[in-house]
């Protein structure tokens, strides 16, 4: 279970987040809705440990992780522009988190296979990510974040920049994947239809 309490973030004069609190129950998918610039992505980064809040706490299953660096939080983040590692293949990208955990090669290989099947991209395992289409890249980004079994998965406007048809298809797929894996997820979006499709509960910022 994820709990963010009284998160305040200031950039110079500007207060981006003011005493924001949020909770996501285990296995729940929550969508955070709001117009651009209101601080949704900032909140995600605070939860992920990429940004230090001026005040407030983040806790995971009761444990306070506010002072913990990103790489020890086991909180995944799917970036808006995917941020796939351009020098690695699809399989290498997906297996990256496991490799950082020093999991054995065969085990990585098996898990990567599973995840690629989950997102429907088994055939592209050895392709360099620079050759992927927009939709494929987003699937790989999702698979990559899921592979190390994060306690919580954060998604920052994961379906931006896709045409309507692809967007709707991927939204449905994303909803299925999250439910199948039982992932605790916090999704940030400005699209209410997307929020309704994917999330169990909608919060507004």
């Amino acid at each position: 279970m994820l709990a963010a309490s009284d998160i305040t973030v200031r950039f110079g004069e500007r207060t981006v987040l003011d005493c924001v609190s949020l909770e996501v129950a285990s296995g729940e998918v929550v969508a955070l809705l709001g117009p651009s610039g209101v601080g949704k992505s900032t909140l995600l980064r605070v939860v992920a440990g990429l940004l230090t809040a001026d005040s407030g706490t983040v806790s995971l299953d009761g444990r306070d992780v506010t002072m913990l660096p990103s790489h020890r939080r086991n909180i995944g983040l799917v970036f808006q522009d995917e941020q796939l590692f351009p020098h690695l293949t699809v399989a290498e990208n997906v297996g990256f988190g496991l490799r950082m955990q020093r999991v054995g090669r065969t085990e990585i290989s098996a898990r990567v296979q599973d995840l690629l099947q989950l997102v429907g991209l088994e055939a592209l395992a050895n392709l360099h990510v620079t050759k992927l289409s927009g939709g494929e890249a987003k699937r790989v980004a999702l698979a990559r974040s899921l592979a190390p079994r994060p306690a919580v998965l954060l998604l920052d406007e994961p379906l931006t920049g896709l045409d309507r048809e692809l967007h709707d298809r991927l939204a449905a797929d994303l909803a299925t994947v999250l439910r199948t894996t039982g992932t605790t997820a916090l999704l940030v979006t400005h699209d209410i239809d997307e929020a309704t499709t994917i999330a169990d509960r909608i919060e507004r910022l």
Partner: protein
Amino acid sequence: MDRDRAALNRRPWWLVPALAAAPVAGLALFYLWPLATLLARVVQPGSVSDALGAPGLARVMWFTFWQALVSTTMTMVIGFAPAYLMARFRFRGRAALLAMVTVPFMLPTVVVGAAFLALLPASWHGTARAVIVAHVFFNIAVVVRLVGAMWAVLPTDLTAAARTLGATPSQVLRFIVLPLLRPALWAASTVVFLFTFTSFGAVKLLGGAANPTLEVEIARRATQLGDVDGAAVLSLLQLVILGAVVWWSSRWQRRASLHLAGDGAARVARSRHERRFVAITGALTASVMVIPLVVLVSRSFRLGGAWSLNAWRTLGSSEVRPGVSLGVDPLASLLTSLRFAVVAALISVVIGGLASLAIGAAGRHGSLLDVGLMLPLGTSAVTIGLGMLITFDTAPFDWRARWWLIPLGHALVATPFVVRALLPVLRSIPADQRAAAATLGASPLRAWLAVDVRRVALPLAASAGLAAAISLGEFGATTFLTRAGRETMPIAIGRLLGRAGEIPRAQGFALATILLATCGLIIGAVSGAVRPDGRVHARSK
């Protein structure tokens, strides 16, 4: 559409040949012919085996490679943190720090050599480690600029993504940052390796007689032992090695550069950790870059353990002891150097300007001239000097005594830099500008004059400064061509620092300080208009 435009608006056919005539003639006469003479010298039976059989050649070769490798490795390692600092952070004094890192790179090698002679204790003089330390100092700019430039566009979110996947900071470095920086790392390593391999001034002053590289040995053979044949063989050997290194390195670099999308913009340090890193790295880098030069200046004011103006006061006389002369007048060498610099800059700018315009006007066909003009850049200065010396030594081409031969040698070394600075400016001119001129009634020739020539005028002036600075500091080629009464400052400094007495040493430091100040002024004036990565800002009116 291109075809129609070409037929109707083609510039006169004689434009490119007219522009290229002087540069091509100059290149052929003063570079290709000397190179051919060197080759002819080597091809004589016996000379190759004699030279290659000389005792100690293997050791010289081994040392040249070894010190270049160690220098390169250490430069890459030491330059890494400053590169990261300059690439990723905005902080007060960043521009000044960048200047502090870049200026040593453009200083004459004798000045850097003198600075480290002043800084390092006597037990370090004439050792390999002194050479390596000076090389690192010199070349940090390459790492900071080349690697930093690439690091600056590395999206921060890539490293963030890696961290959310559980990568520790060192894992991020190892698996994400370094692989993505690889093209820049290769480029920087190659440049530093080539520079340290052919380094002359620093090795000569700091390595002493015990640690010669190939370049220093070539000069020694020719100017101390009179063994020109041996020197010629070593020159060509070095050319072959350099060619092989460049070829091998370019094969490894041939990976297509990856398109890095995203925001890598530099930001202000936020966490206490980051602020500490910025402060410490910034302070250390600034110290390392500035201290040797400060020590150089201060040592010129110290004699016998006390502060003294004696070295400076006696700089105008060449007396070593009553009645006996050093053989070179230090202040006269200053005037000679300035004179030569003006002439060399003039030649470089004219030839370089003509060549750039020719290459620009020639379009696709310009690449041959482009590559041709870059050749002197890849040839060591010592080889250029040696070639000129043995080519222009018989009538009617016996030009050894001509006053213009040395500035010409300097121009040969400097022109490639001028071309490299001007070409991007020319290439950045949108074709529509000429089209606009055409619709306003300008003939193709007039349009070319109004647009292209006008565009390069200011960068040309800036390049003149660059060429002057190069000429002032030129040491390798000048060593061969120097004649009594016409010594340049680097030659004089080398002579002064070669004596064992305290006063000549201090005088050497003083003269090196003057050279430092002169070059520093020129570089400072020019750097507003010319970026060291070769591109030229045209300052807005």
